[in-house]
């Protein structure tokens, strides 16, 4: 017989799977002329229209889910690591590092006369931007670790992350004031977008998820032990410095891969673990996996909405996630106050 907790967990898993499936279909059907399944079917009948679905909508849809999953996973990791339900995975300098790197590439290209814009960048330039964002995220996290003198103390780590965030943001402001052309590209990156996801981006995102998820899941019991406090976790034989290093590594990898493909999409990482805890509170082994699935579902839903709300215009997906996430947190705050 299953306990009520197990029933809730199974129910959430089923719902996430069903919702993801429906959204995947919706993502294939959603085009610049609104969306309909009939239209999708008709489109698939014609050769070059099938190309649109196969080469644009399909990778974009799958990519949005994968990027959301990476964000959800990193949110659950960050909140477990910092023992704080409000910890944002963009802490630790990953977001500011990635955006500084992107700004540097954009500024360098505009100063040397090869203007690059996110939307029109060719394959080589895009690869360069993606690589820069990933390297920037990892460098930002490394800088935070150096400043915090390792991952030994959570508070120091958190403070160092804030300091690195402020410093790197100032540096990228400085760069954009010298090369104003980079501003638009920076803005696009900060808003986040699922619009440029190709099959190769999907491959990168999937690889990131496959590399980050298993070690994170293996360390879930350690995150459980951390809920009793750091001393209690140590008294249970856990080596906290090693544990934190592994968790920060998985966190940096999943954030770095996600932001390199989609820019800084807000709130998905913060909200996904919240939703999981609300619908199916569980030990971290489940929370990590379910947060990844929730993140994927959320970002895909936002992507489909972004495409169809004002079709043929597209709402920036980062704006949508920020609005939805903000509204959710506001509602949570309101509910707490009543309670």
């Amino acid at each position, binding site marked *: 017989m299953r306990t009520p907790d197990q029933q809730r967990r199974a129910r959430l898993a089923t719902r996430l799977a069903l919702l993801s499936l429906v959204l995947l279909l919706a993502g294939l059907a959603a085009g610049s002329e609104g969306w309909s399944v009939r239209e999708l079917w008709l489109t698939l009948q014609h050769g070059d229209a099938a190309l649109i679905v196969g080469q644009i909508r399909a990778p974009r849809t799958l990519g949005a889910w994968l990027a959301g999953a990476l964000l959800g996973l990193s949110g659950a990791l960050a909140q477990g690591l910092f023992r704080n339900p409000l910890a944002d995975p963009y802490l630790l300098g990953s977001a500011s590092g990635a955006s500084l790197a992107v700004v540097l590439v954009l500024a360098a290209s505009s100063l040397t006369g090869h203007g690059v814009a996110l939307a029109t960048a060719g394959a080589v330039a895009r690869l360069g931007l993606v690589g820069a964002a990933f390297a920037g995220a990892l460098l930002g996290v490394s800088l935070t670790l150096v400043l915090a003198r390792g991952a030994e103390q959570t508070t120091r780590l958190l403070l160092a992350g804030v300091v690195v965030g402020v410093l790197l943001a100032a540096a990228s402001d400085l760069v954009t004031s010298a090369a104003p052309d980079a501003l638009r590209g920076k803005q696009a990156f900060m808003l986040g977008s699922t619009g440029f996801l190709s099959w190769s981006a999907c491959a990168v995102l999937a690889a990131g998820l496959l590399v980050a998820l298993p070690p994170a899941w293996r360390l879930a*019991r350690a995150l*459980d*032990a951390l*809920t009793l406090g750091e001393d209690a976790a140590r*008294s249970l034989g856990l080596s906290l410095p090693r544990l934190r290093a592994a968790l920060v590594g998985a966190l940096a990898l999943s954030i770095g891969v996600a932001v390199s493909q989609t820019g800084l999409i807000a709130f998905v990482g913060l909200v996904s673990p919240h939703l999981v805890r609300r619908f199916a509170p569980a030990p971290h082994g489940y929370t990590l996996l379910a947060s990844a699935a929730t993140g994927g579902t959320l970002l895909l839903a936002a992507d489909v909405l972004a495409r169809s709300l004002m079709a043929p215009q597209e709402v920036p997906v980062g704006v949508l996630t920020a609005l939805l996430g903000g509204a959710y947190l506001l509602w949570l705050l309101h509910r707490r106050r009543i309670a």
Partner: protein
Amino acid sequence: MSVAMRKQSASLRADSLGVSLGSTRALDDVSIGFEPGWSAIVGANGAGKSTLLRTLAGLQAPRSGSVELDGRRLSAWTARERATRVAWLGQHAETTGELTVREVVQLGRLPHHGLFGAPTAQDESIVDAAMHDAECAAWQARRLHELSGGERQRVLIARALAVDAPILLLDEPTTHLDPPHQIALVQLLRRRAAHGVTVISVLHDLALALLADRLVVLDRGRLRAVGSSDAPALHAALVDVFDGAIRIERVGARWVPVANVEW
């Protein structure tokens, strides 16, 4: 394995232990050995009781001197080996997360099966026994944050018991407990001690501490006295450490502290 381990007793020794917390000298030249039985560490606020317990548990590195577990320096044990031999419960357990009572108590088995192992049937029966002993089995499906302070404390005690270690270190385990549960805990500690467990508890409640087999009196980071609860020299040390605010009197077969209050 762990049942055999419980029969196999363990010893813990501090040798000229000195500990600094920032610029404060928390412990100074403390030498004391612990064998199977129940020892209570007492002393005024800030005397170094919790620091001594943390250092014995390997959570605080000494500035000088050493702690030896079964004749081997504590730092020479691997973290997991040490964790199967020494269980520790802290004073300010700030808990977060969504774990149920049972899931929290199961964490006590972590040192035995490790992060990558799975709990066995024997682990589960030890968890059941620990919850039974700490009287929290009835609400094992509830979440920690849904419990009252005293209920949560009993769960955390069960978590420490579930390690099933030959050495049990408890910092103020009676915090938040009502009088019946305080007595039940004392009886439980005595039972465990009688079965060969080395129980060391910090207690600010002298009435409870005087029920222990042995009292360890700390005074401003130094070892002031060690002895059984009916030793007159120990009573004198207690009265002195607490600036004469109490006296120790005999009630029936027991010794109890009485406050020196003039109205």
